[in-house]
């Protein structure tokens, strides 16, 4: 079986789709360390503007929202995301019309599920992201989302933070959305050195106190709390005694 390995970029994915389209038995993935079977042949796919462009053009003609959906799906942390998106494209081309409402077809179900997880995490992070005030007055939010969503999250905070400077830092992927108070952009950021403002600790303490007081002890329901607010997110929540390791 042929395995096409992309570099994780959209363009490389579309290039792989172009190459793989006519083959019956092949896989597209960005995980180079996937378990290989005996008879598999791998090929690394470098982005090729021309091939990717042709796939995109076909896609746009069939369903002008499909490229947006694929962009969302490819941000997923699922190792099968490229394959799922590939099969979705095949279905689109085969039906030659939008397929997102054909909700009983496996390719649509899987694609919908990927997108739901990604947009679901964006929504969650609008709530669970925590900023700290730095000595210079900028706000800094480290986090570690399951999916690659930082640039989807940034506009939400830009809209509400006004002229406030802020940074949203995906520690795992070593990238950050940086906002200078006017516009925002993405940048590679490995380690960040952060000095906190003198008030930061005090507000964090007030928040923790608030969190403790607003709870109704007589009605414990930990299971529900964890269902809504998964434990893996706690390490960045002060009220859950999570904190940034560098503090």
């Amino acid at each position: 079986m042929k395995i096409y390995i992309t570099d994780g970029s959209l363009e490389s994915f579309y290039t792989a789709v172009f190459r793989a389209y006519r083959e019956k038995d092949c896989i597209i993935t960005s995980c180079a360390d996937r378990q290989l079977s005996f008879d598999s042949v791998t090929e690394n796919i470098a982005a090729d503007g021309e091939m990717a462009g042709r796939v995109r053009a076909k896609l746009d003609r069939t369903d002008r929202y499909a490229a947006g959906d694929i962009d969302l799906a490819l941000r997923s942390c699922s190792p099968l995301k490229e394959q799922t998106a590939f099969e979705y494209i095949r279905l689109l081309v085969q039906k030659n019309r939008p397929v997102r409402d054909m909700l009983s077809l496996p390719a649509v179900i899987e694609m919908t599920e990927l997108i739901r997880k990604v947009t679901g995490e964006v929504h969650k992070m609008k709530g669970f992201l925590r900023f700290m005030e730095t000595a210079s007055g900028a706000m800094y939010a480290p986090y570690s989302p399951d999916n690659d969503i930082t640039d989807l999250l940034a506009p939400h905070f830009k809209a509400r933070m006004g002229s406030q400077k802020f940074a949203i830092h995906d520690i795992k992927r070593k990238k950050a959305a940086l906002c200078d108070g006017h516009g925002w952009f993405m940048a590679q950021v490995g380690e960040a050195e952060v000095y906190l403002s003198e008030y930061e600790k005090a507000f964090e303490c007030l928040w923790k106190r608030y969190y403790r007081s607003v709870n109704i002890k007589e009605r414990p329901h930990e299971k529900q709390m964890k269902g809504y607010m998964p434990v893996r997110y706690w390490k960045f929540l002060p009220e859950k005694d999570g904190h940034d390791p560098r503090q």
Partner: protein
Amino acid sequence: MLDATTLEILTESAKYDVSCSSSGSKRVNRKGGLGNASVGGICHSFTPDGRCISLLKILMSNECAYDCEYCPNRRSSGVRRARITPDEICSLTVNFYKRNYIEGLFLSSAVFDTPNRTMELLTETVIRLRKVYNFNGYIHLKGIPHADEALVMKAARHVDRMSYNIELPSERSLKLLAPQKTKDSLILPMKKLQSALIYDRENKVKRGRILPAGQTTQMIVGASPESDGHILRLSEYLYRNIGLKRVYYSSYIPVVKSGLLPAEPAGLLREHRLYQADWLLRFYGFDVDELCGEGENLDADYDPKCAWALKNMQLFPVEINRAPLEMLLRVPGIGAKGAYRIISARKFSPLNFDDLAKMRIVLKRAKHFITCRGKFYGCEGNAARAALLLDEKSNFCGDEEDRQLSLFSSPSAALGALTGEL
């Protein structure tokens, strides 16, 4: 800066108000300002009782001139008292908001001095927060009964939502347990606000529109003898005649010892059933008469939709590939989202039982009420009842799909309502 003990006292006093939703408003940020509101509402944290924190929920003061029997802050109680200034509230809100701890402020107060004095200070606070602190996030303000109409209207121009809590679902119980409040002191301001709100909406007022997220209220369930049927009729009236956005139900917990109040808590199941019935009224096209007689309580054994279906078995089973939306919505186990999914998927090809399962339609309950391409997969009559009962038992012990219907539901539960597999 505010000291932690004051914050603790005023939070403890506010926490029994169950409404925490930050939804319904799309206030935008202004130049140089901080904050906006998000229509769907956002949860920022969850407490160990399973409730969402969306707003900084706090009393301005817990010193009260009134003496409501059920309330830990009433005049005759011996609790610790505290008060904070408008500036302290504003600064705390802005600083919590900037750190993304909260979506906004839920400001309430006990009635200190006089109702007007209280309302005045509350109004001053929200105006300060908007004008001086330039805050454009969400504000929910509690209305003070008996305060001047002009003051209330002024405050309403600066906040997203207001609520007058009815607390006791009948005039008689109010007299007995909250002697300083009357039905009129609660209902009249609601009506006034609603007509001002409708005026603004109809005249497409853009700036300073009154209460873009509307009004809500809360009732305590089980502190007084009113039946579920009575409570739900009141809710239906509040939704359909006054136009409230939400009615919250809070099952009674004895925090105060009193001969006039029950010694036992009312229990979560009753509250849970009321919420389920409430969703059915608002999103599923049910009328209260279909769900519960005037003096009756909701069935404890089945959820209200299921109870209704069992009483109307002549209407079932319905064919999943043909039933109209209104009927799909009435199938136990199929939520609004599921119903819409079925409607769009069946346009492309007829659906069979396996298709539904693949589409994540929960079939445990639904299968007794539907056919797929003519085939029935459930049990008939009593066997169906037994199966449903069993399922209901396991459900109330914290099944995922029912979670969102409990009191402890979140703002996103408003959306959840549309997805809840009732």
